[in-house]
């Protein structure tokens, strides 16, 4: 029978004399993975573990900075591995996902190559230009493979490069400006990931990617607002731009959540607003008597939870 869930079996064990054999049969037929799923999983699991362990092994090897190894060999080994993995991606007949996993390993090795380069020529492993070069040199692969884990790695690299550039070169930029830029950048990526595939009739971006980017965007916005509204005492006009933009993005987010019945957006944004409003109340009322902010937090949290549960109930009934 189709559509039997674990919960059904549990309910039936409570209200019938279903025996161990019956429950086991129901679980095996409907819930547990069958031989075919296991074969697919084991194949994917072994290849992923293999490539993760081998890449980690290479990273650990070069992190050890073995002095007896000549520079030529150090750089040569990594370059050889990059060439080998890329050639395998291009010419060996394999499934698309496996091809992408191997290319992802190659993209990681480019980072290792720059790290080894930094180690040999003493430029330091956290120099921003090292991350910039890594980002630039894998760009083509990322675009061509269009593989979500690779995109995530690429976006992380851009963020890291930007933060390192700020710390090492443009130290006159304020922390707020940096956070604001990161927030805008990640939000644009999120919007792109959601709408570009629709426009170009491509396969939809996986949900986990969109959820991760939503979490990143909302966290950055929350930190930014906390810095401006709660911890900062001297107000500047640029804050107005930052604040209006954040409010606009949140409004668009809520509008999108309501029109497309997207629970993730609604939950993240409401929790962010809960944290921010609690912070505001603590800042303005908390210094004399802490009981009002505490009472506020209790009531606000309960209201947000009740609202989320109600909305979900309504949406799932409407579906």
């Amino acid at each position, binding site marked *: 029978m189709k559509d039997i869930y674990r919960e059904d079996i549990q*309910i039936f064990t409570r209200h*019938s004399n279903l025996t161990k054999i019956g429950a086991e049969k129901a679980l095996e037929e409907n819930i547990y993975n069958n031989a075919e799923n296991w074969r697919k999983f084991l194949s994917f699991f*072994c290849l992923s573990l293999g490539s993760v362990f081998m890449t980690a092994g290479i990273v650990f090897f070069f992190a050890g900075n073995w002095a007896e190894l000549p520079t030529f060999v150090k750089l040569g080994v990594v370059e050889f591995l990059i060439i080998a993995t890329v050639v395998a991606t291009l010419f060996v007949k394999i499934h698309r996902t496996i091809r992408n996993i191997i290319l992802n390993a190659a993209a990681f090795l480019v980072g290792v190559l720059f790290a080894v380069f930094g180690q040999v020529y003493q430029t330091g492993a956290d120099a921003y230009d090292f991350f910039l070069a890594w980002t630039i040199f894998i760009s083509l692969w990322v675009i061509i493979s269009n593989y979500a884990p690779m995109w995530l790695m690429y976006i992380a690299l851009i963020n890291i490069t930007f933060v390192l550039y700020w710390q090492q070169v443009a130290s006159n930029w304020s922390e707020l400006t940096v956070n604001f830029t990161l927030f805008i950048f990640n939000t644009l990526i999120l919007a792109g990931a959601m709408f570009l595939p629709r426009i170009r009739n491509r396969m939809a971006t996986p949900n986990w990617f969109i959820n991760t980017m939503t979490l990143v965007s909302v966290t950055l916005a929350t930190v930014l607002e906390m810095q401006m509204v709660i911890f900062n005492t001297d107000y500047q006009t640029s804050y107005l731009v930052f604040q209006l933009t954040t409010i606009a993005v949140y409004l668009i987010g809520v509008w999108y959540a309501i029109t497309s019945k997207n629970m993730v957006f609604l939950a993240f944004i409401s929790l962010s607003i809960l944290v921010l409003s609690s912070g505001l109340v603590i800042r303005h009322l908390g210094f004399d008597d802490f009981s009002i902010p505490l009472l506020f937090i209790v009531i606000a*949290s309960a209201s947000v939870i009740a609202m989320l*549960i109600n909305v979900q109930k309504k949406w799932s009934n409407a579906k």
Partner: protein
Amino acid sequence: MRNRESIQNLISYFKTTQEKEIIFEEEAIFAAYQNNNESHSLIVKIAVVFGGILASIAGSGLLLLMGLYELEQGLILVGFLAIGVSVALSKSYDKLFIDTLSACCFIVGLVYIYLGLDHYNLDITTICSIFIVICLALMMFAQSYMLTFSSVIVINGSVIAVLLGYHNLSYLFDLYIALLCVAITALFLNEAKIITLHKNLSKIYNPVRIGLLLSFICVLVLLTRTGFISIRYDYIWAPSIIIICATIYLVCKLCNTLQIYQNKDKIIICLVTAIVLAPTISCPGIAGAVLIILLSFFVNYKTGFGAGILSFIYFLSQFYYALSFSLLTKSAFLFSSGLLFVAIYLFINKKLASK
């Protein structure tokens, strides 16, 4: 929510699953589905738990501000009262929101009892033992999801506190990890037996499973982070061996699923598993995460699978800091394991192609 027709279909399906005649309490089943009209997405559950924790911290702070901290008996009394309220709440309403609220009440109650008992200068073992007794009693009487889950987590926390509170007991920490490993393996692989054993066991199965799983990951994290806690690392291989044995046992069961019945093949597969996992002997976290991933996939438990993958990534990154090997040795371990995995992958694909 299921309608009458789909429930009838389920009843006729279950009749085919066993030879022994099966008697259904139809009205009770309909009622169970009527009450169970809440299916929340993971994100709502996380939001509810987050909000609940925030509310309970603020609520308990509020009570303390009102001067409750001064009265030791008052604290203990309010603590037990809060636990009583939590049980009453979970018994009367079967809703996620109320359930979370009752779990928050329970945690706040325990904090008050702790603060109250602290006034009497009781040692940590006594306080933790009281907690464990309260939690066990709660698991028996109130079978709600969040309360049972919180109880499992508190019991685990109490056991860890007792084991690490005394330096001479720290060798038992390894034993505790091994015990947790055996408990989880048994719980995952005997699902049908456990849920049909008793009505209450079927109710608390899910929260106990996730509670034990998180406890297991938690003790592995404690063990892996060198310098985080003061335990001796002389016997770090002991829990690893148990984890590896559990994995081999699982692989044996898996052979049946994969229709591998010849003993020779089974022995080879078990040997390969042992060889692949052998390098993790000084790093039980990695072996533990692999066990969690395999167990969760075996019973198709998605939350456990996700937790397994995340902990695997974490433990692998922690392996970098393991002090017992040089980076070069670690690199050799990782690279050779990687090669072995790729070899297994090629072998599996070749076998599949030949079929």
